[in-house]
């Protein structure tokens, strides 16, 4: 029932801009909302988070997040709610799970492999340097 009400609110959101303001009066809660909304992707512009997007959907989602915060929902509850509605695509930071192990660990592997190769190259170059007379520039 609450969901239905929220969905209606979402649809009506743009029209009721004056009634449901995009900012919370409590500065601490507002700062919290600003921080939280950077975590979600605008589904219209895709390149930007809903914190940065000019699209009406992003404005609706910003309001929605404030509704939840005003009600005292935790960040995790809000995240779960948005992911349930829009899928994991809405998260700017992909969660660490079986689908994303490669995403998160591949750069680390590149770093380790690069460091290993560099160490080998340095060792071999040193061996070569031992055989040849070195000339400083």
């Amino acid at each position: 029932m609450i969901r239905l009400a929220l969905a209606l609110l979402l649809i009506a959101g743009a029209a009721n801009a004056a009634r449901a303001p995009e900012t919370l009066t409590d500065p601490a809660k507002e700062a919290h909302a600003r921080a939280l909304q950077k975590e979600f992707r605008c589904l219209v512009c895709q390149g930007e988070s809903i914190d940065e997007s000019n699209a009406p959907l992003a404005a609706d989602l910003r309001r929605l997040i404030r509704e939840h915060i005003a009600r005292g929902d935790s960040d995790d509850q809000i995240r779960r709610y948005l992911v349930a509605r829009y899928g994991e695509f809405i998260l700017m930071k992909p969660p660490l799970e079986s689908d994303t192990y490669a995403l998160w660990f591949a750069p680390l592997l590149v770093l380790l492999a690069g460091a290993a190769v560099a160490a080998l190259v340095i060792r071999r170059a040193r061996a070569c340097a031992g055989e040849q007379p070195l000339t400083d520039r």
Partner: protein
Amino acid sequence: MIGEIGQLALCLALALAMVQSAAGFAGLRAGAGAARAVASSSALGLFVFVALAFGALVYAFVVSDFSVADVAENSHTLKPMLYKVTGVWGNHEGSMVLWTLVLAIYSAAIAILKRGGERLTAAALGVQGLLAVAFLLFILLTSNPFLRIDPMPFEGQGLNPLLQDRGLAFHPPMLYVGYVGLSATFAYAAAAMITGDVERGWARAARPFLLAAWVALTCGIAGGSWWAYYDLGWGGFWFWDPVENASLMPWLAATALLHSALATERTGAFRTWSLLLSIAAFSLSLIGTFLVRSGVITSVHAFASDPMRGEFILLILSLAIGGALALFAWRAPKLASGAAFEPVSRESAFLVNNVLVVTALAAVFIGTLYPIALSAVDVKLSVGAPYYETFFAPIFVALMIVLPFGPQLSWRRGDLKAAMRALAPAAGLAGLAFALELAIATPRALAGAGSFAVAAWVIGASAVDIFGRARRRAVSAAALAAALAHAGLGVTLMGVAGVTLWRAEALAVLGPGESVHVGDYDLKLLGVSKANGPNYVAARAEIEIRSGGRTLGRMAPEQRMFPVEGQEVAQTAIRTTGLSDLYVALGDERGGGRWAIRAYVNPLAPFIWFGAAIMALGGLTGLWARLRAGLFARWTAPAAAERA
């Protein structure tokens, strides 16, 4: 008529590109002087005909010839002249002609400068000719800008208003000079493998092209980020959008290559790696083009997308990468390691640089392509700024801590103690910056103090390096180039830290006469009036700026509506002191004459682009030194050229 001239010029250019390629490869045989001359003059001819085609297209846009489909779809008679011209590359077809024009300019430069000798030049022209054939075929078969429409429409459909911007006019050509410049490095690397001379010569021959490409990419990326900063209206300067990443990847590869190819050129170290990196850098340019043009990703850049184009670019991509890697496999037995250096040496410093930069590159590459790969198996996933920042922050901090040692260490065998003694003042400066930042900055941020310390360390090290060399009377243009490029990176880091950590913002709905406070400023809305431009209608807010009881002046952000394209675009107002930006954007009307206003104070924001400009200046210094040496080499003994 002009359309047919352009079409004919493109066909003739295709024929010349084929001749250039065939003659270039024929010029590999000893005594094939005639073939080499044909390859060179074909390269010049190619440039002439591609320039003619490009000129024809510009003319069609300037006179609004709507019988040409490309013009009708992307232009409008009411558009200001500047945007009629820049609209030529504000669409897919025209931008590919520009791409080919830049390729032809590089081919002509290779033919004229003849760096690395006749044989290497002939092979490089052969490779460049193949690339020109591929792109001209791509244009003629899938993206012909000169197609006519019948009946001819009375009016064009206009250009995306976001692209109607002075800053953006020069961003795409700049990026193309960078992307395509890497084709010259690629061509020299391939030429080295074809001729079998994989020692140092090709790296020296390719250097000016690599520097030009790097400078252009630096300016192009900085320009794009500046555009995002003032045009999107949220005060952000980098969004880790796939298209931005597509330009960042070649830049990172070129940055790594600038270092490894320098080592190859000077001491013969990292031959294999420099060849591979040259192939990778240009491949990333092609991948970037593929990503942007194929419609795999959606963005403001992805104009009209057509699967056939994507497939064609994918074909070019696989032939270029596959061919280059096959060449590499063929020559691999010749690529014995020539490296002989101590663990403490400039070569080792460059190795550390390459490991870190390539890791950053891998993070961008994986982050950009992983969601596309997963979408093939119907998993929708998005990778945003937090992912990239997780990797970039530690990698760049590590990189910048190690960076100052590079210029201080000699080739082959460096003296770590002497380097540390020389760098002591820079370390002192870093400590001072750290303490000062903790003392005066509000809110206090350890990350900010750390960033400033690292930036001071890098900038101080550049200064120390140049002063040290000046005392020894040994300042070279190359040393100055490195010092500037490194210091520029430090300046950019300060800007990034300032905006990220100390931005102040205010979001308010104001009626006339009401004020909002942001940072040290009071902004009072005087009123909102209508203002009409050549092809838009705008709401313009007059805002009075006060600080410390004094009136500083007025700012006038606008909200522009482009009726032809049916889009609204915010025109932000920025008031900069050089140290910080006051940034105001006008939102939408909220009823009763009240308007949404967003205001930011972005401390040190200008440093982001100052830093990029200093980096580019460093690259230009290096380029100038190289070209001067190259031009002199024609009149001086070969030994002098060897030293240059």
